[in-house]
């Protein structure tokens, strides 16, 4: 029995389906129960959260959590399917501390809102960037530039001719 099936056996109401994704056991979780399931997964020994991926499937947004257990040497992928218009899921920062920056990155590029995150702001792009670039409906026609402002902070500008405004 792989970890996804074990999870399905333990929490049959929260796990929608199990499967295999890129040779890793995958469990699709109901988004309402995600925090509860994440705690259970941590109890099962999955102590390392490798990466959080956000995928835009046009009609829905999927967030995939790749986990690894150093004790059992096992992989597990958790997936939650979110509404495309307002993608919201509970933050797992209380369970895995590393989720802080990973969730900020997913928020920055895909626009998933993590409820309960203490400091949910952009991490790669500067504040004020319009849109989330890895969304399918991102506007590619308005070109945005990163500019060093007068106080040395990165700011967003639509003018590529004057990128350096530091005094």
């Amino acid at each position, binding site marked *: 029995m792989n970890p996804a099936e074990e999870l399905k056996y333990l929490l049959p109401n929260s796990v929608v389906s199990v499967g295999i994704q890129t040779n890793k056991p995958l469990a699709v979780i109901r988004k309402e129960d995600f925090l509860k399931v994440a705690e259970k997964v941590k109890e099962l020994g999955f102590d390392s959260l490798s990466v959080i991926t956000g995928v835009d499937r046009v009609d829905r947004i999927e967030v995939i959590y790749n986990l690894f257990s150093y004790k059992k040497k096992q992989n597990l992928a958790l997936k939650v399917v979110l509404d495309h218009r307002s993608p919201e899921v509970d933050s797992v920062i209380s369970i895995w501390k590393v989720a802080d920056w990973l969730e900020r990155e997913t928020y920055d590029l895909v626009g998933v809102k993590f409820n309960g995150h203490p400091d949910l702001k952009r991490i*790669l792009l500067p504040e004020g960037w319009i849109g989330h*670039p890895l969304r399918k409906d*991102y506007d*590619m026609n308005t070109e*945005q*530039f*990163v*500019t*060093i402002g007068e106080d040395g902070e*990165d700011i967003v500008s639509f003018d*590529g001719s004057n*990128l*350096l405004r*530091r005094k």
Partner: protein
Amino acid sequence: MDPVTIDTTKIRITKRKPETALEKLEDTNLINTLLAAKDREGFILLTTIDQAMNWGRLSSLWPVTSGLACCAIEMMAVSMAHHDIARFGMEVFRASPRQADLMFVAGTVTKRMAPRVKQLYEMMAEPKWVIAVGSCANTGGPYRESYCVLKGVDNIIPVDVYIPGCPPRPEAWLYGIIQLREKIKNEGYGAKWGLNK
């Protein structure tokens, strides 16, 4: 009979204007200089000041140590013993842009990096030259349709030589460097008078 007094200070020796080519050459006193040099068994090099300065500049182009992406790996290869840009006096990669007069934009210029590249360029002292290396620095390359990559580094800084390739072979780098040397050689008045041959 009154003695005739001649005020010698009033006499001005008029020099005949040189008319023939030989007279003109004698007038410049150049022939005596050349003959004197021949006596000393020395040599004389005729040039203009800017051509001498161009020669000095192109013979010791010091690049600034900056690599943005994978093209920088080829930059290391071109500076190593096999391809050896020390032949051009360029092996001294300076860690400070103040001491450099050439910048290789080697790699993808992301939007976040673009103001930093511009700042690096502006910190370099005049005269300065820029070589854009690789598809990414030239046009954006495979990332042209991306939201985060500049579509050519010539949008922010002036570029002298473009080297295409992804990444360019070290031979292509050497060809680009030779093209830049030709460009420097053809700057100034001396080149206009045909002294760069």
